[in-house]
């Protein structure tokens, strides 16, 4: 990728989800990003595999989540609960720009990853601390995952089935990504600030707050009027506006009509030009009042059509329409292909694997052999031995005492581009 962050070193002491995703973006833009593991605390994302994945040759500790979210990173095996483990961590902090973590405040204190302590070690350090509810307040030590925050923030309520009131979900843990996106912006801005002033900062991300922020206008509306917004696929501007079944109900395609021109075009495509004169559909207001009938009739028309053919057909007439694509559709999406959205990574066991494109991409080509799929502690020798200058004898002792760990499985070429101690 761009190498815009060449020379930046990041310690990714996070467990899972949004924060490793930040580290991944930093790594792809040239930063040296080190992730921490130990055989006592393997990150959960290692084991995020489907039950049948093992039959397909996926190792149970080598999930696609690990492959994707930790691509481009180094791995150190380090037991932070041991005093010497903390000393090694501090030595790395001294020569780093940034520490990322998402442990609960009490857990961070237990392993010494707190801003106060890091600041004493490196006054220019940037620390991003992502928690469920923030570092202060009555919920600060409460744990939650992204989908709990969806429920807490009002998002699940807004994603409910408007007919049955059954709560909904993004089912993509969108709150983790919101935290990741806010965190990424915050650390990039903090790096600019650090370069200007030499000072670091603490970035305190509450997943509840980023979730509420993403629907901030609706929260403000509620405070103003006390009225809840309508749930489901509704638009103030478009009617019809919805997702309609295609391919005998196997797939869906969205259709939206924002103006009279699009409405007339849709009626023509449906061979129902007479609708323009029917009182129940003649105006946007009438269509809104009779929306159930309208949606039902459109659904009957779309039901036997192929979704992509329908999308192209309506798009040619200037009508917003889009297939509700699944993973297979996305691999075949010509626009994503045109943008070379899916990178190929070099994986030690799987060979070339397809990854997910970056959310922040300046358009430069991906590095040709970005590595992924590391084994636990694969880079311990480089980081503790070469970078921190510990002797072979000391390394052996630390290994024997379980302070550091290193997997013998792989040795990647190309290490050492960031070698050498940095002035602290």
């Amino acid at each position, binding site marked *: 990728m761009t190498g815009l*962050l060449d020379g930046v070193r990041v310690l990714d002491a996070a467990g899972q989800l949004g924060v490793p995703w930040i580290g991944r973006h930093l790594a792809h*833009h040239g930063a040296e990003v080190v992730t921490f593991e130990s055989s006592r605390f393997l990150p959960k994302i290692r084991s995020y*595999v*489907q*039950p049948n994945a093992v039959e*397909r040759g996926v190792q149970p500790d080598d*999930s696609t*989540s690990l492959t*994707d979210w930790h691509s481009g990173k180094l791995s150190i095996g380090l037991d932070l609960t041991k005093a010497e483990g903390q000393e090694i961590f501090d030595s790395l902090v001294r020569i780093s720009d940034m520490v990322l973590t998402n442990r609960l405040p009490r857990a961070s204190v237990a392993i010494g990853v707190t801003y106060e302590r890091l600041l004493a070690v490196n006054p220019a350090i940037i620390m991003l601390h992502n928690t469920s509810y923030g*570092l*202060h307040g*009555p919920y600060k030590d409460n*744990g*939650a995952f992204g989908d709990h*925050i969806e*429920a*807490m923030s*009002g998002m699940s309520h807004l*994603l409910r*089935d408007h007919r049955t009131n*059954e*709560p*909904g979900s*993004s089912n*993509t843990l*969108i709150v983790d*990504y*919101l935290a990741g*996106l*806010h965190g990424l912006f915050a650390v*990039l801005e903090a*790096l600019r600030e650090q*370069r200007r002033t030499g000072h670091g900062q603490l970035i305190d991300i509450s997943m509840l*707050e*980023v979730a*509420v922020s993403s*629907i*901030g*206008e609706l*929260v*403000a509306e*509620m405070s*103003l009027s006390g009225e809840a*917004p309508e749930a489901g696929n509704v*638009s103030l501007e478009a009617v019809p506006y*919805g*997702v309609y079944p295609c391919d005998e109900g196997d797939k869906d395609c969205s259709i939206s009509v924002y103006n009279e021109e699009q409405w007339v075009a849709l009626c023509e495509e449906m061979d129902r030009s007479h609708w323009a004169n029917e009182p129940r559909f003649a105006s946007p207001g009438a269509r809104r009042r009779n929306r159930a009938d309208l949606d039902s009739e459109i659904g009957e028309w779309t039901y036997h059509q192929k979704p992509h053919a329908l999308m192209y057909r309506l798009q040619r007439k200037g009508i917003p*329409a889009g297939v*509700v*694509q699944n993973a297979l559709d*996305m*691999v075949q999406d*010509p*626009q994503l292909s045109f*943008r070379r959205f899916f990178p190929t990574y070099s994986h030690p066991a799987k060979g070339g694997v*397809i990854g*997910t494109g*970056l959310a*922040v991409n*300046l358009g430069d080509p991906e590095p040709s052999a970005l590595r992924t799929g590391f084994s636990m502690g694969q880079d311990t020798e480089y980081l503790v031995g070469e970078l921190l200058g510990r002797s072979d004898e000391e390394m052996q002792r630390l290994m024997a005492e379980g302070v550091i760990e290193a997997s013998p499985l792989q040795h990647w070429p190309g290490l050492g581009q960031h070698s050498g101690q940095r002035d602290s």
Partner: protein
Amino acid sequence: MRVVECGSFASAYAGRLFADRGADVIKLERPGGDCAREAFPKNFDVGSQKISTSFAFFHINKRFITLDLNSPPGVRLLQALAGQLDLLLVDEPYSTTFHADGTFRRLLGEHPHLVIVAITPFGLEGPYAGFQSDDLVLLGMSGLLGPAGSPSGGPTRFPGHMVDVLVGLSAASSGSLALAEVESGGGGRVIDVSKEAVLASLTTVAPAVPKYLQEGFMGYRGKSTPGVPSVYYPTKDGTVKLTVHVEWMWPILAQWISEVTGETEVLSPQFEGVGRSRYGELVDHWITELTQQFTTEELLAEAQLRKITVAPLNDLKDVLANPQLEARGYLREESWMPQGIRFPGPAYKTEPDQFGAWRPLKAAGGDNREVYTQLAGLSESRIGELSREGVL
């Protein structure tokens, strides 16, 4: 640092992120103001102006100018302003036009250190570059719409302007990265932000496409965590989301159920691991027996002690009364807003604090005089002329 942003809500959110951190962010609207100012039903008065809550949320902390970017004098004036800018955030409808008519190329030629972020639905070029789009189209094409919603409902769009928030976040980070390059001695650039690609980059915690290609898993709509059958359970006074994200939570939950209900069968090993899914109805019954013994607050407190992940199913009224948000001062009231209206503050906090007081919202073009005299060197009379001609 100075930013101009024009277009719809994605660029507006990117601009707000910079404005919150103290940048001088100038919102450029068409003469008379963008329709989003009043297009949404919940409006409030700021001075003599009506402003929608949507517009307000996305434009807090900015200055406001007007300019007709569809007229040659308007584009020339933008070119003059660009010399005073670090970052130009351009959304639809201008991004496609400025790419096609060479405006971006000319701006970068005249101001080689300028960073331009061009936001479009599918990208500046490619087979879908001319497609019509909205939130439904983009969420659908990017793979986010299929899983979203309730198990019994159909694919359901993300609420409000979440798509713009997500894209705006990406656009802001791209801008920040490119600004760092300029500050390190590099040149400016045009960054082509595709909303579809940004959203596709967020496809599921188990990355959708790699997961499909390597593990044959296609994703589904419904419960995101199958650790317990129903996920949502009733309490004495509400509903909670209760999950067993990781298997070590199950024996703790089973023990809790047993303590509260006297049920001992729940402790049997046959309910551990994937085998539990065979007894969905029974497990749901036991969990419901447990949760109904508590109020939501009581259940949350006890669950936290036991390290079981539980959250209340809140509506927006609950959010406004949330004690954690209250304690952190997250929802802000400003003296220049009507009493009672509250807006979320910056989405994260920093130490030292990088965020200052909020600048009051103004009418469209409320900062025309100040901005055009100071930054474009226009005289008062020239500003008057351009206003009469409809350019400002």
